[in-house]
């Protein structure tokens, strides 16, 4: 269940335009983000919500941010960070997840996730769901995301 990585085609094209863009970006770092999405999975559910996890590698020299997602299967997809505070695990909504240049961000249980809300139908392990992930600077990417058993997601819990 490791879908082949998807790259932002524009990011590759843009490498040649690096010097031009560097002046135009303003504010952020001078380079261009080069995003690679992998390892996406959605936990199966028979309720109206599900969590989606994935790995986002930014191999470029410019910062970017994950700013949202959409799925035909869900009324809404929101971005959440789970925070630990005094022994409590607490989910907090957020507008963006920073994808710094030359870094990898894991959306993983008890870390951060995309939450598919108001699902039209239960999601069963073995299903595949199309999710469009949006970024601040890179073009959106469409992923075919496998629905997996929840127990397998425990394997994703990181440090």
């Amino acid at each position: 269940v490791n879908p082949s990585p998807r790259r932002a085609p524009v990011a590759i094209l843009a490498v040649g335009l690096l010097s031009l863009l560097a002046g135009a970006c303003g504010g952020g770092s001078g380079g261009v983000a080069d995003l690679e999405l992998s390892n996406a999975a959605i936990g199966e559910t028979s309720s109206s919500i599900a969590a989606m996890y994935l790995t986002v590698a930014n191999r470029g020299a410019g910062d970017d941010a994950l700013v949202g997602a959409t799925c035909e299967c869900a009324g809404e997809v929101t971005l959440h960070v789970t925070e630990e505070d005094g022994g409590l695990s607490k989910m907090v909504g957020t507008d963006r997840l920073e994808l710094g240049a030359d870094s990898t961000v894991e959306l993983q249980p008890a870390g951060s996730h995309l939450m598919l809300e108001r699902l039209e139908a239960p999601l069963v392990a073995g299903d595949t769901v199309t999710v469009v992930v949006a970024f601040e600077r890179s073009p959106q990417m469409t992923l075919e995301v496998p629905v997996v058993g929840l127990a397998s997601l425990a394997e994703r819990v990181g440090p």
Partner: protein
Amino acid sequence: VDDTNSSDSGADATAGSDQPDDRSSRSQRRRTSAAVGAIAATVVLLGGVAFLGSRVATDDAEWAGTVLGIQQEKPAVVLHDTEGRPVDLAADTPAEVTLVMFGYTNCPDVCPISLATLASALDGMDPSDADKVRLFFVTADPARDTPEVLRSYLDQFDERYVGLTGSIEEIDEAQALANVPPAVRDQPDENGSYTVGHATQMIAYQRDGSARIVYPFGTRERDFLRDLPRLLRGETPTVDE
């Protein structure tokens, strides 16, 4: 080419549950909940001293859960199950191993993974052993988690799971006696939805009413499969000196 930060091992381990149980991934996972870990570490330090000379059964094999330095007793508090029957967590929990966790059914991230992982482990155990383990899921969100909601939620995972509810005061009392911080409910947003901050560990009480080990979020199926039969046999987790 790839960076080698620690999160990679988590990603690599997603494919299945047959990964070898290596120590490094286990120790990484133990850092998952920093706060819980810190509390546990403190308890371990304090308890390590208190426990010297008073251990009953020593076992050299390492435990997959987090061993408590100071054992804790079942919470003597009365809640109600999804049939409306009163359940005293101390007196009415005769199973060989009683697991207690606090959560809520609108929890998309932590609770379903914990509940599914344990269910999967119970399925993998000898059925007569699995029947000797009882999970009590105490809602930290009694307003939304009606008995019906709780029952149908838990049935997704394992019909043997017991859902418990009560007043906020009773649930807070249960958490205090279980030695976890009380859950915090956010203000509802414009749609009336809100999140609940809650402790995520499963506390494992043995037949004598004492818990000596807890299972933090991220405990794998193989961890439960390793520890639960030992707890059923009456082995008592103790902290290494």
